[in-house]
């Protein structure tokens, strides 16, 4: 990616974030169901344990290429929405499982395995369904608009990571594949730490010390 293209990409991302942020302000339910739609839309975006694994599976697909992964653009939203329906019924506790998906998907990106296509599809569909379930478990409002919003947001995150990664890896820059793998390892590291937190944070004795930030000495 050259610097102009980086500019363009960062502007698009910035604009997209500004749009989503703006929708928070104006979500006042002009149409019945729109409140549920917008809370569904924001739900996967406001929790790192959802957004990071979704980015990771997008990057994993992007490492494999747009052509190999194109069917995922259909399979992913179906898996996510089905998972959300199941999650709405069962309301499962999936904190540790979500962390596990960050570890697995991020770790695979870091390893830069050339996954068999079938395995890639299985992983993306499974991670999509798991996050659909944990998002669906949080529904307190109208079912259909919430799932539509959550599926839309999750699919946009997945598809954007997919596209950007594919695009970045088709550039000739030598460091780009490493940058992609490094980001994968950040997400995997997040998964490891969040797994530990999922088991520890419940007990009040766990937080060892209050944060003591000593500026530079």
């Amino acid at each position, binding site marked *: 990616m*050259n610097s102009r293209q980086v500019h363009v*990409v*960062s502007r698009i991302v*910035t604009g997209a974030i500004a749009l989503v942020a703006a929708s928070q302000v104006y979500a006042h339910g002009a149409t019945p169901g729109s409140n549920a739609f917008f809370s569904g839309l924001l*739900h996967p975006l406001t929790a790192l344990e959802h957004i990071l694994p979704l980015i990771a599976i997008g990057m994993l697909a992007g490492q494999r290429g747009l052509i190999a992964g194109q069917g995922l653009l259909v399979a992913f939203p179906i898996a996510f929405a089905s998972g959300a329906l199941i999650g709405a019924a069962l309301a499962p506790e999936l904190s540790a499982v979500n962390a596990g998906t960050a570890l697995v998907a991020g770790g695979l990106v870091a390893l830069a395995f050339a996954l068999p296509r079938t395995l890639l599809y299985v992983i993306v569909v499974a991670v999509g369904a798991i996050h659909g379930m944990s998002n669906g478990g949080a529904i307190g409002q109208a079912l259909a608009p919430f799932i539509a919003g959550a599926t839309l947001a999750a699919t946009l995150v997945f598809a954007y990571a997919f596209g950007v990664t594919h695009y970045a890896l088709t550039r000739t820059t030598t460091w780009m594949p490493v940058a992609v793998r490094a980001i994968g390892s950040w997400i995997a590291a997040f998964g*490891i730490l969040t797994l*530990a937190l999922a088991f520890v944070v419940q007990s009040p004795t*766990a937080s060892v010390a209050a*944060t003591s930030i000593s500026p530079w000495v």
Partner: protein
Amino acid sequence: MNVSMRERRAVAELIASAALLLTLAVSFPAQAHVGQDDIAGGLVVGFLHPIFGFDHVVAMVAVGIWGAQLGRPAIWVLPVTFPLVMALGGVLGILGVPIPGVEIGVAASAIVLGAMIAFAVRPPLVVSGLIVAVFAIFHGYAHGAELPESASAVSYAFGFVVATGMLHAIGILIGTIKRWSWGPALLRVAGALIALVGVWFLLPHLTGG
């Protein structure tokens, strides 16, 4: 590593846009997610934790510079494996497993890595990887042991991982000056300075102060 001027500028701009994104993410009003605390606050505290500890800053920049000095394949391996090993150290810190002398380990990491750069030591990849991995455990432990009580521990975790990765990137960026005729010498001076900072942080532990 053969990095052109254009690519180096692109790296710098990538870092800048990532910082911008993080700022935007942080400026999001923290949405009350079921069972979660202050997400944006956790990101900020986590991101600042390595940056406000000058011993962390110099050691992590040293990892990047050393990687650039060693060239391939170290420069590829370090930024990918470091976060994972650091996370294991972070887990030890979160669990409260007692590790003696973490602060000494962090200071020692600056001394050793700075010395490696200053003397331009080129051990086999396994050895350099092991040296960096041992220090990654100490750094991760130091971050993991100081979970914020008021903000989201989950986003804190990602914050310190990203900040550490950015410090590596800055180190690698600095390391690219080795292509210029005076570059390698300047890098070695930088390594000596890093080692001195490490000594400065180690002294209070030695004198018992």
